[in-house]
């Protein structure tokens, strides 16, 4: 198989590119720090300004790691959803799963003023992660149950959109009745941000991330047989219910945790798997999963670099950047290929 060689070459190039983008991402920010000093902070004992050290170690590196986790996690989530729903336009945002996570967070941040007594949880990032995961799990399972009775791919998307609307409506109602400070907190969360994560929060984030990623091992092979439909997969010995539940768990936890820590981020999950398919020209999940993860991480790092508006002190909402990037990519893919494949 000479295919294998060219795949390896592309993977090698992508990883080199990812490292390049990562270095680029680390080098830019509101305070300009010379590249040689960044290297010094990371790899040598050389004396560097303390403020620079803090910026790199406690701000930029956690932010870059967050970007990598968010980008790869959302992309893998999107890829799994597209396979699960046999729908090339599925993704965490389109199907309302991100909105479900938002609802979970809204109930926690805004709902405390209504129900009271939960204030101590809402301040902990662990609580937000759990709430968001539960929110996305609830919406994801509901969409899946409804999707089972309608086979039409278009209907599934519209159902996802409707669930998105329902959750936004509930969030609006919650917002209407909540205190101004809590509302402000929620709105800022909703802009999305990759920064502001302490090492402590990051460790919670990454353990959720690694946990759900490790579950991928169970479904790597069945994913490919799902490409030709559930009936065929079943006839090849796949336990569909088990695989479906695992996929449900992975996508909900990934989307939930990512949304909890960095806000609802649109289009990455939908667009990146298609970019991966375009580059590798395959549907094989053993290729597409790592490819989507690398490309997603890269895209998030680039988006974040743009969001920093290098050398300025402003940071744009990351959600706005990914939408500005992602939406045109999806439109371009649809126009160019006429038809998106799984």
């Amino acid at each position, binding site marked *: 198989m000479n295919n294998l060689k060219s795949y390896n070459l592309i993977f090698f190039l992508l990883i080199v590119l990812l490292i390049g983008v990562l270095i680029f991402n680390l080098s830019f920010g509101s305070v300009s720090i010379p590249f040689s000093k960044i290297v010094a902070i990371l790899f040598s004992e050389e004396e560097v300004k303390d403020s620079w050290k803090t910026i790199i170690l406690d701000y930029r590196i956690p932010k870059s790691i967050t970007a990598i986790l968010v980008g790869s996690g959302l992309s893998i989530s999107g890829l799994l959803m597209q396979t699960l729903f046999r729908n090339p336009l599925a993704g965490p945002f389109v199907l309302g799963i991100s909105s479900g996570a938002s609802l979970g967070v809204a109930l926690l941040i805004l709902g405390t003023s209504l129900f009271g007594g939960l204030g101590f949880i809402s301040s902990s990032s662990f609580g937000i992660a759990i709430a968001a995961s539960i929110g996305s799990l609830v919406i994801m399972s509901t969409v899946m149950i409804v999707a089972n009775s309608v086979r039409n791919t278009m209907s599934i998307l519209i159902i996802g959109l409707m669930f998105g609307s329902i959750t936004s409506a509930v969030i609006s109602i919650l917002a209407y009745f909540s205190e101004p400070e809590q509302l402000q907190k929620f709105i800022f969360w909703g802009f999305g941000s990759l920064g502001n994560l302490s090492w402590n929060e990051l460790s919670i984030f990454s353990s959720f991330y690694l946990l759900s990623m490790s579950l991928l091992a*169970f479904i790597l092979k069945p994913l490919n047989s799902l490409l*030709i*439909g559930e009936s*065929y997969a079943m*006839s090849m*010995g796949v336990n569909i219910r088990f695989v479906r539940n695992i996929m449900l768990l992975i996508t909900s936890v990934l989307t939930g945790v990512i949304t909890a820590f960095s806000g609802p981020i649109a289009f990455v999950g939908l667009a990146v798997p298609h970019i991966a398919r375009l580059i590798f020209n*395959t549907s*094989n999940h053993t290729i597409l999963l790592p490819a989507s993860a690398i490309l997603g991480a890269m895209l998030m790092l680039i988006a974040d670099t743009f969001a920093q508006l290098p050398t300025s002190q402003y940071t744009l909402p990351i959600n706005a950047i990914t939408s500005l990037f992602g939406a045109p990519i999806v439109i371009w893919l649809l126009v160019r290929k006429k038809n998106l494949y799984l």
Partner: protein
Amino acid sequence: MNIDNKHITIEVQDLAIGYTSRKKENIIVSNLNFKIKRGSFVCILGKNGIGKSTLLKTLSRVQNPIDGHVKLENKNINTYSNLQLAKNLSLILTEKLPESNLTVYELIALGRQPYTNWIGALKEKDIEAIEKSIKLTNIAHLVSKKYFELSDGQFQRVLISRALAQDTNTIILDEPTVHLDIEHTLETFQLLQKLAIQENKTIIASTHQIQLALQTASEIFLMTEKEFLIGTPKELISKNHMDKLFDNESIIFDPIKEQFLLKKTP
């Protein structure tokens, strides 16, 4: 008669098939008893809605029988694990495949899944099985194409090839020639007959191609509203059973020409 049992692939005892909806049982056919020998090519004939698909689904455990049981290789089919079943029985369905970038080779290789490790890596033995099934179905020139580039006829061969790669004694096909033109329909029946005879596969297919079924099948299941008839094509024709397929009296079976004719209206 014990020796004979070794060559029986599928045995059905007191089987009742149908479906349950809202706790109500709808029995389509009951009291079915038959044995299918290894290497047979069985065609199931009958009108639309008569229960051909339900029978195939029950034989392949997609659906549970209402009563009685199905034995596969002398073992109740319900005692098989998913994986064991996948190594003994493969399916070819009428449903459309979701559009994807899979190549023909990858699609056929999926048939090896019951045998491969957790990541689905193909070993030498798997590749041998894939190559053999490609050869049997004569599609070597198609392997590097994407499957959505194929014509319906080519695609059907690919699906049969995938089932062969799964290396099962039994292959069940639901209306394999439904989208095909005459040439590809003929070729498909020829191929199925060849696989039964040469490769000793047990092949069970539902079809509306009565004439081709009579020419190629080793056994015919004739499903009508009143009866479930089993026999070789010759037996069914000589006993004038073929006429029972349609209740329309203006359609008659000509036993000499071995085909259905429309009675001329006076």
